């Protein structure tokens, strides 16, 4: 929980300022409240990777993912794991409800939700690594639409191959925003042992580097510099 709290504070822009006990307590309460309200669900599936001219096709599906970045991420993989995680509509409702009466609380809850969904993704990632292990493969890191040149336009297709609306109630608006809001979709590559890219997460490979708030705020190492 301490690690989780650190992460929440990091999302709130905390840089080792003096933190009064009352605020720290509020953060802890918000974490508990958010976790009690959320209805976390996840779904993931493995697909054979079929590199084609137009992009990376997930075998047995009509989904072809375009762009150089996803080719680098999955091109040499045998299989791709596609995953989706959501905290459900209740988490959104909780954040929205406080927006009106206590904006600070709402912002803190929002950060708690961001942290929680990441934590759940880490859990799914572990499951996938275990599965990869069983298949004699190893996995690289998670990669999501909106990173690099993998466009958000891939989102509906990803939800489609997972049947995510039916399985976990995850949908996507006409503007490609995932709803419920606190949700993530991602792709991991499964490679023969020793061939998975290091999975290092430095700024170099990060698609958010141009707009990263940490870098904007003068942290050259981005989010990693605060971990």
């Amino acid at each position: 929980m301490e690690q989780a709290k650190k992460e929440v504070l990091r999302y709130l822009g905390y840089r080792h300022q003096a933190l009064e006990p009352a605020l720290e307590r509020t953060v802890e309460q918000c974490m508990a409240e958010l976790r009690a309200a959320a209805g976390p669900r996840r779904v993931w599936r493995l697909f054979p990777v079929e590199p084609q001219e137009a992009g990376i096709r997930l075998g047995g599906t009509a989904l072809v993912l375009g762009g150089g970045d996803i080719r680098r991420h999955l091109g040499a993989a045998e299989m791709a794991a596609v995953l989706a995680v959501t905290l459900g509509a209740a988490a959104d409702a909780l954040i929205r409800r406080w927006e009106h009466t206590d904006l600070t609380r709402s912002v803190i809850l929002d950060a708690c939700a961001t942290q929680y969904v990441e934590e759940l993704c880490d859990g799914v990632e572990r499951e996938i690594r275990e599965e990869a292990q069983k298949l004699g493969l190893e996995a690289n890191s998670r990669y999501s639409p909106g990173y690099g040149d993998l466009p958000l336009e891939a989102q509906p297709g990803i939800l489609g191959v997972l049947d995510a609306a039916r399985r976990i109630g995850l949908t996507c608006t006409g503007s490609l925003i995932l709803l419920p809001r606190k949700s993530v979709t991602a792709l991991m590559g499964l490679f023969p042992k020793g061939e998975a890219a290091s999975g290092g997460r430095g700024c170099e490979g990060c698609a958010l580097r141009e707009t990263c708030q940490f870098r904007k705020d003068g942290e050259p190492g981005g989010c990693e510099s605060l971990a």
Partner: protein
Amino acid sequence: MKALLEEQILLFDGGMGTMLQQRGLEAGALPELLNLERPEVVTSIHAEYVRAGADIITANTFQAHELKLEGHSVEEAARAGVACARASGARYVALDMGPLGQLLEPMGTLGFARACEVYKRLAVAGADAGADLIVIETIFDLYEAKAAILAAKENTSLPVFCTMTFQEDGRTFVGCDPTTAAITLQGLGVDALGVNCSLGPAQLRPVVEEMLRRATVPVMVQANAGLPRGENGKTVYDVGPGEFAREILEMVDRGVRIVGGCCGTTPEYIRLLREGIRGRRPVRTAPVPVTACTSGSRTVILGGGVTVIGERLNPTGKKKLKQALRDGDMGYVIDEAIAQAEAGSDVLDVNVGLPEIDEPAVLCRAIREVQGVVSLPLQIDSADPAAIEAGVRCYNGKPVINSVNGKREVMEKIFPIAKKYGALVIGLTLDEEGIPPTAAGRFEIARRIRDTAVSYGIPEQDLLIDCLVLTASAQQEQVIETLRAIKLVKARLGLKTTLGVSNVSFGLPRRELLNATFLAAALGAGLDAPILNPLSAHYNQVLDAFRVLDGEDRDSRAFIAKYAEAAAPAEGPRPAGELSLREIILQGRREQAADKVRALLQSETALGIIDREFIPALDIVGGRFEKGEIFLPQLMQSAQAVQNGFEVIKAHMESAGEQRRPRGRVLMATVYGDIHDIGKNIVRMILENYGYEVVDLGKDVPVQTVVDTIRRQGIRLAGLSALMTTTVESMRDTIAAVRAAGLECSFFVGGAVLNEEYTRFVGADYYAKDAMESVAIANRFFHQ
């Protein structure tokens, strides 16, 4: 079909997706296109189910709607789908309507009216193609079910079945429980309701049993073949046909009348069901009639305790609410709704009746906003039948209508609405002759209202009678008649009662004492649902006490928890505190700000406090934030302290008749398609702190709304936010449209993906990297 349901168990088919995948359909591809591209494959699957013994074949039209289809029209896909089903030799063909794949407002961005249109097109296409019924299935949002049901019933004459999908916790993805689903769906007039998909039959049993207890129409179950798991890249299910049939037939023995299969089921599952059904006849269930209203996720059943209806969302006598409604500012409405919910209301009355507003439109907006933050059922209150219908239509759940009375003309207008949407209705015991002076006279009107409602097909338990209170100061002898009338209505008609309590004390001192005493007396007479101000301590004390006395508060637990420690003053006066206002703000002690400002107003002018206290303190806080000495929540706590102080200043200036001159007016909006508005809300608060007036258009704001508002209100500076690369486009469109309209307005923009480069791309004048920067921009813009 309805007659058939009385006599026999109806058997639907099983999974289509499973069968298509066996034939090589790719995951994620739209199966509906196969109706056109490979009709013989679709028909062959249907035919297998016909051979297995299915009565009803579900056409392959689950997502054949205009939000999903590309390259083919809805009509083509639906026609081909129904034709494929018909060609299989099916006894009956059901048009299938699944979820739209987007969340509806307020959770999402798809409008209710738009959802109705999308479903309408599919429903009409299916009916034209010759479908025998419509099945709406795999729905997890009751609101979406309502859109589909209305579309089907308004535009076709086909029977409508509706099933929803539930999780292990007994709720849908958005929190709807089986009771709420059953009560709401049958109110909307479906011919059958139930559950499909979700889970295996064993896990669904509690959901089905709960529905059987509530449903007055046949219950339908199409379970999955257990839970899915991945096996060699394929999805497999863990319940075989034999076990599946056993479980489902047990449900049939408990009263389920329509069965079939969903994901993972195949013709073999249906064949075994057919064998089991042979020789079985529908089992009668005995649902207990209840008087209940619902929201999208909650049911309130009247009786068995006091149901409190919060009355505060009503502009009568409320200057601030009137102003907020005129300005289209829903913040005030939302705050009142949350406050009443937290004070223990069970239902909230919503009335926005003002002569100069478009009542139907404002009522719908208020309902949507309130339903976005509060899960209580609402009572839709208007004198205008058009507003009632608009409100009841756009409402998510089974609402209460406030009200009809014994006047024929009123009943003729309102009862058809109540019937169509399945609403509860309050009947006031008055008619063309006025309010009868005796209990017997009011009882007679109640009876007439009941009889008329029943003649419209409204179940009598969907009525609530209000025996009306007159003021003790003017018509003292009448007060007791109200109490007598309540007893009569309860005893002889068996209907539930409601009553607006506070009128009784009008014109007398110590109103709260009279009101509380009258409330106790009315509860004693059998009143079920008082309409009152739930924030009143006097009412709450009576309610808390009554709940002990009538046995609702078991072992007086709630009462003891609330009052045993009351010796220590929970909300006693806070220590005066030695902190200056500036320190209070700097430390973000927002609960102390209002008192301090009140004290300062004794010796300082309102403007003086803004200029000499708020702004310098905010500048310090802002500077610390810029330097990284404090982080966002700390900045916000200080801003909220100022905000609380500002409320006091505003009230003070209003009562002194002073006009507040804002430092400037700024429009703010989260652009069309985007719903991430926390950043915008932070900027709004800080700008207001600095004395700016903010016209906040909210989120997902259409381009034209921004253009119109800027023109109408002469706005010169506007802030737009967008979080996504996709919605940055919408930011550019908005700014371009304003410029094209020839309006002189400058723009600042912000949001996670924004930077200087994007700012140029969207054509904005300034980039605000955070809230403090927005203030700096506004200060430069208006004051240099």
